């Protein structure tokens, strides 16, 4: 019989505060095969791991059950510790008596009963565990970065500067993302263009970097180290090799559409470069609005192009690339203000959102940096800023704090005052959250030097009243209703994952959280890795964050990629689903259900075989197989049945494996 050791972690008082450790130890010792049971205050610490190692050696243990926190946190820790003293790491299993027991119960006797059953079931499991070796596969040392905003740019540069090739895929006609739209950046007020555009240029000129703009992810297959990605390069209708960026085409284009880059505050043509500093600085044709495509008319751009670069016949092109790691930097958007009906969003022309105000502030924006309101182009003398427009609102908006708005609104009010000296800025706020280096000082400066008036309370209604925008709110510090007849209102809408994040995540088979942001493995200890291995997260697609944080996370994601590329092989979890050849009838049901194309039918032998490196161990085939021939390693039917038995309090009847 296998010699099994059980170790109980107190996790400070996280576990020991609820569970009766002594009773667990006593009872565990009576389980068949358990030769040793020990407890320790912090089992994951160095002395804790030493204890496990010493016991393995002293009692010649064959297997170990760690009763502690979730395996997603410390399974690798203890498997590594065991391996160092010669135990096969797959003989170590975790009983999660913290998240699944002590944290969710408060009655000590019954919670302790449950913990004992949980440990018992893991003891039953480990008894039948096989010793496994990781599956290794070669590694393509080339990275894919999805998204060409500041996070994607930074991640790509960091990886490329470490000597690896990078492919950047950007949906828009230019890289740069939202940062390219910003005027000046808090807390230092350096101009966004001045710090971003050099990075855009560096990325564009980098010999290790290939940029695909106006492109999207079409398909993805493979696994960490060996992804196969299909990229749809949308037809730009302009041959970028021939194009000299002369600009004649968009001068002569008669179509005017609201510019996405200017957030509708200015027009662009149907053939256009989104902004003067765009990379690539060459136009694309918006086919939905081009007269050539909608009415087979016009064709001006083609006629005037001196290098015959305009090509109406261009088709979307799908290219295949092989990469070893993928950084997802898909970014954010602002919650649509039209959803905020009580704030006049989409109805009152002089109610704008934070990014629109950035464009008004920008020296290269539609008003050359003058604060002119959209309705009549007059200078706005009184401006009301509304924070938490849709954030921190469980009933009508998003429950979370969008994090960047307190600081950008403080900046907006300050920059406004710098431009309109006799103007007045009011900010409605719930709390001013100015956590960050130099942030509190920045906010105070706005109050002290620029006379920003902060009103603590929510706004109830915003509406057009003659040529004014009426704002009703409350000032909870004085307990009074406040009514401001403003010239203009700037909403700070909730930041949300960029449009299409959900579809992208589905295509990549990575996880998103309840609000649609990309999920990280662990919020504190593994914040830049996706739960699916091989994917790394950067920027505001993972959670609302400002530029410094986005850049830092991008650097973190890049260093993870570089660390992966520093080895020559990838190691895959061997807990795959095999085939019991004796009972496999060759029906092929499992081949159809496998989402990873890991199973193939050998028509001659009438048996299924598994391409081990492709198997993710999801278990879909195991559920589908009519003869029980698709058995997951270390999670076989026999193991599950004996675990269920242990959970129900039955005595062990399962046969010993070794």
């Amino acid at each position, binding site marked *: 019989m296998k010699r099994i050791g059980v170790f109980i972690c107190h996790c400070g008082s996280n576990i020991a505060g609820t569970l009766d450790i002594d009773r667990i130890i006593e009872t565990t010792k009576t389980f068949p095969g358990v030769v040793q049971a020990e407890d320790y205050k912090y089992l994951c610490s160095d002395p804790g791991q030493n204890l496990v190692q010493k016991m393995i050696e002293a009692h010649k243990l064959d297997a170990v059950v760690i009763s502690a926190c979730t395996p997603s946190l410390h399974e690798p820790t203890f498997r590594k510790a065991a391996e160092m003293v010669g135990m096969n790491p797959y003989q170590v299993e975790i009983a999660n008596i913290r998240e699944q027991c002590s944290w969710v119960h408060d009655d000590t006797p019954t919670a302790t009963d449950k913990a004992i059953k949980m440990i018992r079931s893991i003891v039953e499991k480990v008894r039948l565990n096989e010793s496994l070796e990781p599956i290794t596969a070669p590694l393509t040392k080339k990275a894919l970065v999805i998204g060409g905003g500041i996070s994607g740019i930074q991640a790509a540069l960091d990886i490329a500067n470490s000597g690896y090739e990078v492919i950047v895929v950007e949906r828009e006609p230019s890289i740069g993302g939202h940062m390219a739209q910003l005027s000046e950046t808090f807390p230092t007020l350096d101009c966004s263009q001045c710090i971003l555009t050099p990075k855009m240029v560096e990325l564009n000129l980098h010999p290790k970097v290939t940029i695909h703009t106006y492109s999207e992810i079409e398909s993805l297959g493979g696994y960490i180290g060996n992804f196969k990605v299909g990229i749809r390069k949308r037809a730009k209708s302009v041959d970028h090799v021939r194009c000299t960026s002369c600009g004649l085409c968009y001068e002569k284009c008669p179509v005017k559409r609201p510019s996405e880059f200017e957030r509708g505050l200015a027009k662009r043509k149907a053939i256009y470069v989104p902004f003067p500093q765009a990379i690539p600085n060459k136009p694309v044709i918006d086919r939905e609005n081009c007269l050539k495509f909608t009415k087979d008319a016009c064709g001006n751009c083609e006629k005037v192009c001196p290098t015959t670069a305009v090509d109406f016949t261009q088709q979307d092109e799908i290219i295949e690339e092989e990469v070893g790691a993928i950084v997802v930097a898909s970014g954010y958007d602002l919650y649509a203000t039209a959803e905020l*009906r*009580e704030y006049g969003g989409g109805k009152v022309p002089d109610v704008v959102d934070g990014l629109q105000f950035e464009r008004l502030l920008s020296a290269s924006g539609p008003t050359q940096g003058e604060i002119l309101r959209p309705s009549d182009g007059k200078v706005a003398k009184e401006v009301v800023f509304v924070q938490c427009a849709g954030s921190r609102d469980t*009933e*009508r908006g998003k429950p979370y704090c969008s994090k960047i708005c307190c600081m950008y609104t403080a900046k907006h009010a300050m920059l406004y005052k710098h431009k309109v000296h006799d103007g007045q800025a009011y900010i409605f706020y719930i709390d001013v959250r100015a956590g960050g280096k130099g942030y509190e000082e920045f906010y105070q400066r706005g109050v002290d030097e620029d006379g920003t008036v902060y009103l603590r309370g929510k706004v109830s*209604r915003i*509406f*057009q*009243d003659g040529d004014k925008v*009426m704002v009703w709110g409350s000032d909870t510090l004085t307990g009074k209703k406040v009514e401001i007849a403003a010239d203009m209102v700037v909403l700070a809408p909730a930041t949300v994952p960029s449009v299409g994040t959900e579809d992208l995540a589905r295509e990549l088979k990575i996880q998103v959280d309840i609000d649609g942001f990309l999920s990280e493995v662990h919020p504190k200890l593994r914040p830049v890795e996706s739960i699916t291995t091989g994917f790394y997260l950067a920027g505001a697609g993972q959670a609302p964050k400002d530029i410094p944080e986005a850049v830092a996370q991008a650097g973190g994601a890049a260093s993870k990629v570089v660390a992966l590329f520093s080895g020559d092989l990838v190691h895959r979890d061997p807990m795959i689903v095999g085939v019991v050849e004796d009972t496999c009838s060759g029906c092929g049901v499992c081949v159809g259900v496998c989402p990873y194309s890991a199973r193939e039918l050998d028509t001659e032998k009438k048996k299924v075989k598994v391409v081990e490196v492709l198997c993710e161990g999801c278990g879909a085939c195991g559920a589908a197989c009519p003869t029980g021939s698709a058995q997951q390693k270390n999670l076989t039917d026999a193991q599950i049945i004996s675990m269920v038995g242990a959970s129900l309090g039955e005595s062990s009847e399962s046969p010993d494996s070794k």
Partner: protein
Amino acid sequence: MEIAYFPGCTLRASAIGLDDSVRDTAAAFGFDFKEVPDWTCCGATFNLAVDNIMALAPPIRILANAKTVGDRVVTVCAGCYNVLKRANYTVRNDAEKRKKISDFIEMEYEGDVEVVHYIEFLRDDVGFDRIGKELKKKLDQVKVAPYYGCQLLRPEEELQFDDAEDPMLMDDLLKAMGCDVIDFPHKVECCGAFLTVCTDLEARSAAKDDDTGGAVSECSYTILDAAVKRGADFVVLSCPLCLYNLDSAQDAIEKEHHGFKKIPIIYFSQLLAVALGLDPKKYALDSAHHYVDPSGVVKAKVLS
């Protein structure tokens, strides 16, 4: 086709014009409203005390009686709609309360009657398009301020009538009727509600913040003034309490706010009845039923 109709107590007294116009317009569209048998007062306000479930007995009894007629009950008073719909929501979501009340009123009721506001009925059963086609009077010279108040809308999750912050349903009906509907930002502002019964009319004319009566006339003033300044001929609504507050407060407001111009307050269904060519004299559009007599404006703008 018989459809249960619950008028409620106010509609048989001060809001008789609302009751008559609802019944007659429904009939004009070919619908047969049958009064809920043996009906009582709905309770007038929804009981907010968690433990006082006996206050739920009247509305649930009304719903149980409505079930003998059909699976829907139409009502029009915003207060009744609020009480019936919330009581129904409670029955549907709280099995314990459901059982207690069923035992008490000795009637089985599972929450299976739909509570429908008459505007919803006009939208879903009659159709706004059809209404537009069957009008006998042109209303394009009639400028209206649609006013919803609170009882139709809140709490949003339980009532599901329309967006509680920016409702459009009555706007849409009035537009279908051909009215010139103003963009009315005050459409959900509080009219003062039951504060009006705290004190008498004299006290209300004091119009001071520290006096509840004053609060009612100040609330009403804000709403009415906004409607007048936007050029409205009428404020249109479906709540008898709102109508009372907005209508009766105008003398006091006139004294307090110089230059205030009075504006008649009418029910949407009164306007609909007149527009359908029914006899305007039948629907209490007169000084006997209004503090601010709407008949002059009706004559000038609707009947001319």
